[in-house]
């Protein structure tokens, strides 16, 4: 009997990260989420990001989304910790093309990005920085990083 394989989608969940007023940086100074323990062995995770730009951002700039990987035995990319915290991103894998803004963006314009991690391993997280030359919007509820696992399911 042939058995079809479908993607089994888990619910979208918010990641623990403080993005309000995140300062602009051209040297990777940004923020990390709390690490997620992949205790169910999920095989892929899709990431959904929304950021609200701050006051008078410079055009043609970006936010950058990176992956953090932990081996469950103390190793985490770029020496990241396990909690929501500031992080200088150096060698963390960039997950998507840059999250680009307009050439002449207005205050408060929203940026969206999505990307995927295959086989994230025992622990994983997201790190992000932005170089729009102004802080992100100051209201935390105006930003998020969410994730939704999906793993194959044999029918």
């Amino acid at each position, binding site marked *: 009997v042939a058995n079809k394989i479908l993607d089994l989608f888990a619910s979208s969940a918010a990641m623990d990260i403080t993005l309000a007023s995140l300062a602009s940086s051209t040297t990777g100074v940004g923020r990390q989420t709390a690490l997620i323990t992949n205790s169910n062995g999920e095989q892929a995770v899709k990431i959904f990001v929304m950021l609200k730009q701050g006051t008078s951002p410079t055009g043609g700039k970006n936010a950058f989304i990176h992956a953090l990987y932990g081996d469950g*035995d103390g190793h985490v990319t770029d020496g990241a910790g396990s909690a929501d915290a500031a992080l200088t991103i150096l060698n963390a894998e960039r997950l998507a093309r840059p999250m680009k803004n307009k050439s002449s963006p207005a205050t408060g314009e929203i940026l969206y990005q999505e990307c995927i991690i295959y086989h994230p391993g025992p622990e994983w997280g997201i790190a992000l920085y932005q170089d729009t030359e102004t802080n992100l919007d100051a209201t935390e509820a105006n930003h998020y990083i969410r994730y939704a696992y999906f793993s194959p399911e044999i029918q």
Partner: protein
Amino acid sequence: VANKSIDIFGASTDLPTGTMSSDPREVTLADNTANRFEICRLYAYIRASGTPAVGDLVNFYLIQHDNGSPAHLSDGASGVTSTIVPVPRNAVYLGSSWVGPSPSSTMYVSFECLLYQPGHKWSILVDPDFVAWSAHSYIRYVGINREIQ
């Protein structure tokens, strides 16, 4: 009945690097003949002995072994921890990490990647631009097998 496929993780396993330097170095083979991991996630942490220069790279390559006799090993590697200087290098390039601004004597570079179907036996060739400090560096992996629930 629908059955979900999940990842089962092996323990994080060290690939001994031996005494590192600025020379390209292969680490001892991971023997995958028993575990038969379909996927491995690699985790590396390389620290310099002294202060590296901005822009210095650490390059990572995959050494593959066919378990034959005589064995095929990428770039004629030995399969045990040692210096390896093949030129030109034809092992599969995995990627690089770099030394960022304002390096210090305590800084390090991290590197992670996925290896799909690494095969019977495999290893890593690490090639730092700086003199690596063995006692504060490591290369590890977590093996992954999928399991139908």
